[in-house]
């Protein structure tokens, strides 16, 4: 759907569309809530960065992209991966480190990867995804493909040198990159005003010559609309676009973070603007959703998660002998 199609959509189509956005947000939240339990049960090991509170960004942005578009993500990427369409069982198996996971169990929570959905990876290096996103877009531009590369990163990444190199490259070469900055106000324990002289990140991007806007990242419809407009702009060959999604993470930075750097009241205040609650309220108000439909949705998602957990439990581990595999190409590639 283009922006115009969406505006002209019939009410039933619109209701269905809202339902789908709600479904994606709920899948992400419930999935992660289960991950917390699985982490406590040591089924999931290593690092775990939760997206809870930020679901509107992934759900809204992915809805505005096409399957041909490319995604580059961060270590806080469960939401991006699920909303992009990587099967939940494959994401859950990856969380478990099982061979059926989307990265064969090698990546874990921070390194989900799926070439089939053009999901070019979570990335545990802050800012690490930006250069490769620029490269993907350059390749698309050279091949004349009308494809957008959506690159997600946090406010913290804006302080890294790679960010600045990449915005300049993308603007200079008019590359089809959609920079999706998830400004959740914190980089680990550092609040944005302690890390950035100019905290208006969209303004920073504009200084590099990019079209840039800030978006209410707690409103899934605003996210979708703005992403759609930006993607159309990029797809039409007008160059890169920068979206600053103003959002918030409710949970600690990771499972190790004691979360000593902010007031509980601040979290509670953002929870008042919860993206899921807001959409539910709106849909109820417009008679697009009733208790039964919501209960059915909850049950359907719970079943999907249960099935994913069970499949992950039963899945095999990658054999230890494979430890040394995939360091190098195993067969000659077409260009030798």
């Amino acid at each position: 759907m283009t922006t115009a199609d969406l505006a002209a959509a019939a009410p039933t189509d619109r209701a269905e569309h809202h339902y789908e956005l709600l479904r994606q947000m709920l899948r992400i939240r419930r999935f992660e809530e289960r991950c917390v339990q699985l982490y406590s049960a040591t089924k999931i090991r290593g690092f775990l960065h939760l997206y809870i509170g930020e679901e509107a960004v992934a759900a809204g942005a992915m809805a505005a992209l096409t399957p041909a578009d490319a995604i580059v993500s961060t270590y806080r990427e469960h939401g991006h991966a699920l909303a992009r369409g990587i099967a939940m069982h494959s994401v859950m198996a990856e969380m478990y480190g099982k061979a059926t996971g989307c990265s064969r169990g090698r990546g874990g929570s921070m390194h989900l990867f799926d070439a089939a959905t053009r999901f070019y990876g979570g990335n545990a290096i802050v800012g690490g995804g930006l250069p490769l996103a620029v490269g993907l877009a350059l390749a698309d531009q050279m091949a004349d493909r009308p494809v957008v590369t959506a690159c997600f990163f946090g406010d913290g990444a804006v302080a890294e040198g790679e960010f600045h190199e990449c915005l300049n490259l993308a603007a200079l070469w008019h590359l089809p990159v959609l920079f999706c900055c998830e400004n959740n106000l914190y980089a680990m324990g550092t609040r944005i005003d302690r890390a950035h002289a100019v905290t208006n990140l969209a303004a920073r991007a504009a200084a590099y010559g990019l079209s840039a806007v800030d978006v209410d990242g707690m409103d899934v419809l605003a996210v979708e609309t703005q992403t759609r407009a930006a993607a159309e702009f990029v797809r039409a060959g007008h160059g890169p676009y920068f979206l600053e999604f103003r959002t918030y993470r409710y949970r600690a930075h990771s499972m190790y973070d004691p979360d000593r750097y902010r007031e509980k009241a601040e979290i509670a205040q953002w929870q008042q603007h919860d993206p899921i609650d807001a959409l539910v309220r709106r849909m109820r108000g417009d008679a697009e959703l009733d208790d039964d439909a919501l209960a059915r949705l909850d049950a359907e998602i719970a079943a999907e998660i249960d099935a994913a957990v069970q499949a992950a439990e039963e899945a095999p581990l990658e054999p230890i002998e494979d430890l040394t595999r995939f360091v190098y190409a195993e067969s000659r590639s077409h260009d030798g």
Partner: protein
Amino acid sequence: MAVETLTLGKALNNGLRRALERDPKVLLMGEDIGKLGGVFRITDGLQKDFGDERVIDTPLAESGIVGTAVGLAIRGYRPVCEIQFDGFVYPAFDQIVSQVAKMHYRSRGKVRLPIVIRIPFGGGIGAVEHHSESPEAYFAHTAGLKVVACSNPSDAYTMIQQAIASDDPIVFFEPKRRYWEKGEVDTEAPLSAAHPLHAARVLRPGRDATVLAYGPMVRTALDAATAVADDGRDLEVIDLRTLSPLDLEPVYDSVRRTGRCVIVHEAPSSGGLGAEVAARITEKCFSRLEAPVLRVAGFNTPYPAARMEEEYLPDLDRVLDAVDRTYGW
């Protein structure tokens, strides 16, 4: 004498505190090191006591952190930079190799760079690539840098202070999985009486074979020695401590007596410190060797996922297996 039982992490914290107290030119810089005390809490409480102008929270900018340390050092400060995890040092790699390592040489000795770059390194904490790596060889390969690794609380306490007092730039590796291990630390012994920073140390004398290690693998080597002691095999364990410059005289002395040597590190074997050490031992002790110097190391792969980590990391069995193999020649 004030002997306290401290974890390695707390010993580092106390050592940093002493350095801050001793010299007003000492500054700490890093990501979330102030209010949060660092992800491993190594700088816990220091900003509160020394202020945010001496214990500086920085944005996410590793290149900027190390690069500004160069300027500060030229102006007479002694910056101590924290890199949060081993795998995050690479954005700063350019500054370390191109500026930190070369400024003294380039200025013909006119400027000194008393910079310490602290890096928690190694695996064993159930993390993955970028969070469990052992990048010491990159730095040891670079002339102009000094590289050390501590292995126990007592050394951690003194070595961090000696590194800060050094007039050369030092990459200081901390064995992150040993942060919580306890040991006795004499917090009142004068620094001048401590074992020199750039000196290896025999931790356990033995007659039969020499086992070399540094950082997190020292404990593994000591455990291996304990495990075979009852079987009558007497291993000498040496903690290298300084990776650049290497201090191998105690190693040569040992190998000339034992004729057998195994070197253990987590980093991949290929191009690792073990290769350099083996080459030098071969040059100096060739006629006394009963077997080639063997390496027990990580595999030549990126650091694997948590559940493969036990296979990847050298452990007691692999160390003892290598010792056995030196008897097979």
